[in-house]
């Protein structure tokens, strides 16, 4: 645990940790995957990933050269005294982390192709969720370009039900997972509007690897989809094997009678993710 009186410094430290140190739940997930692989190529991929995690942590090097688009998922207590300063502080933290770690400049103007660093129009991406209370909880996720290009949105016919949702997501994941650095984590948002479905899918990626949805029907959907994805045989880095996905995280919102939107967000195995809590006192801490 890292605490600090200046919560801006705590944010920079949190970004550094996520960049160089693979989450313990992912390390455990990769080890389990390794135990389940019999193919030499699959084992080589997973062993190299685990070796990379060790070398990165021991040398303070970024796990991946694509240090990603910075995304902050903010659960902001509306009574927090720090709310007004939060957005500039998040942008400032990314700028400082870019210089000090350093992060790769990865924010590009789509019209001029000019690379401005990691802070620009719309980035870092900030997802706001206002909740009652005095505490702010911020989960930082670095989103690599390869996995982001594997996103999908499907407008499923409501009559096809959850079986139709599963078929659509499965077909998509099998098609795109080889380019998203598998074993991946699959986020699925079901219902709501098209944009909400994608947002739910993204937010679902912030859960710890082994956390299942508390609704048993959703948890069953997660288990069924994970099983089907892993029976595809795509395997680590798409070179064949038993583990294509480490987890499926699903969430839902109520849908319109005519509409069943399904958002899919994938995260690569280098799931750089860390949470910072800022209580009313301002003494922030990085939560492992």
């Amino acid at each position: 645990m890292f605490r600090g009186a200046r919560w801006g410094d705590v944010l920079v430290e949190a970004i550094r940790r996520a960049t160089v140190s693979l989450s313990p739940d992912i390390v455990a997930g990769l080890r389990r995957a390794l135990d389940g692989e019999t193919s030499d190529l699959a084992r080589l991929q997973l062993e190299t990933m685990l070796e990379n995690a060790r070398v990165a942590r021991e040398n303070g090097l970024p796990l991946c050269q694509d240090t990603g688009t910075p995304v902050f998922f903010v659960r902001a207590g509306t009574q927090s005294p720090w709310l007004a300063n939060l957005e500039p502080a998040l942008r400032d933290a990314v700028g400082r982390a870019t210089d000090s770690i350093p992060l790769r400049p990865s924010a590009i103007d789509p019209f001029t192709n000019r690379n401005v660093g990691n802070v620009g129009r719309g980035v870092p991406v900030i997802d706001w969720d206002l909740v009652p209370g005095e505490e702010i909880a911020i989960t930082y996720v670095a989103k690599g370009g390869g996995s982001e290009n594997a996103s999908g949105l499907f407008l499923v016919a409501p009559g096809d039900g959850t079986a139709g949702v599963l078929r659509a997501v499965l077909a998509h994941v099998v098609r795109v997972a080889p380019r998203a650095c598998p074993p991946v984590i699959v986020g699925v948002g079901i219902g709501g509007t098209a944009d909400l479905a994608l947002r739910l899918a993204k937010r679902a990626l912030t859960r710890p690897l082994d956390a299942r949805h508390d609704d048993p029907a959703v948890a069953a959907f997660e288990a069924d989809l994970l099983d089907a994805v892993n029976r595809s045989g795509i395997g680590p880095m798409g070179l064949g094997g038993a583990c294509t996905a480490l987890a499926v995280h699903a969430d839902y919102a109520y849908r319109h009678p005519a509409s069943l939107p399904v958002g899919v967000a994938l995260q690569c195995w280098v799931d750089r993710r860390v949470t910072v809590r800022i209580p009313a006192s301002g003494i922030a801490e990085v939560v492992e």
Partner: protein
Amino acid sequence: MIRQIELPASAAEVASWRVGDVLSLSGVILTARDLAHRRILEASLLEAGERGLDLPFDPTGLPIFHCGPLARRDGVRWTITGLGPTTSARMESTTPAIMARFATPFLIGKGGMGPATRAALVERGAAYLAAVGGTGALGARAVAEVVSVAWLEELGMPDAVWVLRLSEYGPLVVTMDPQGRDLHEEIVRAAERTVGNASR
């Protein structure tokens, strides 16, 4: 199990690579991704006309690594702190023409490429090597020297062309070989059959 390859590799050496071979490379490569491919291709097309566009590096005979490195500048010296593959499929449209113009012996990336590149590999006796995605720290430690960097100002750090001397960079798996085998394609076809059968 891992074959150590010194670059430049002979044509006979590359022609002997087969899907499933695991290699480790030592020698000079260049990095290029979407924007650099476009610029290199434009330069080669101009050269075919009356006026040549000088490239600030010579891609002739160099392996192309689909990679946007992470680098730190200490004074005038660059240190690579992250090196690993980016998704190769994005370079599919420009690759066959570049390989033909610059005698590219092989490609390094992740995720494989499409049918046009597969045909170009067979025609040229070339190959595609898959690096392990997300292993930038291991890659950084395999960089012996930053030989040069071009287009840094115009394209930015990831899209610039970095000419690097590598030392035992690997493991790299041959996934598309000079005989036309394509492991990526084989795995995806099998996966689609499995998924198709399951949902019938």
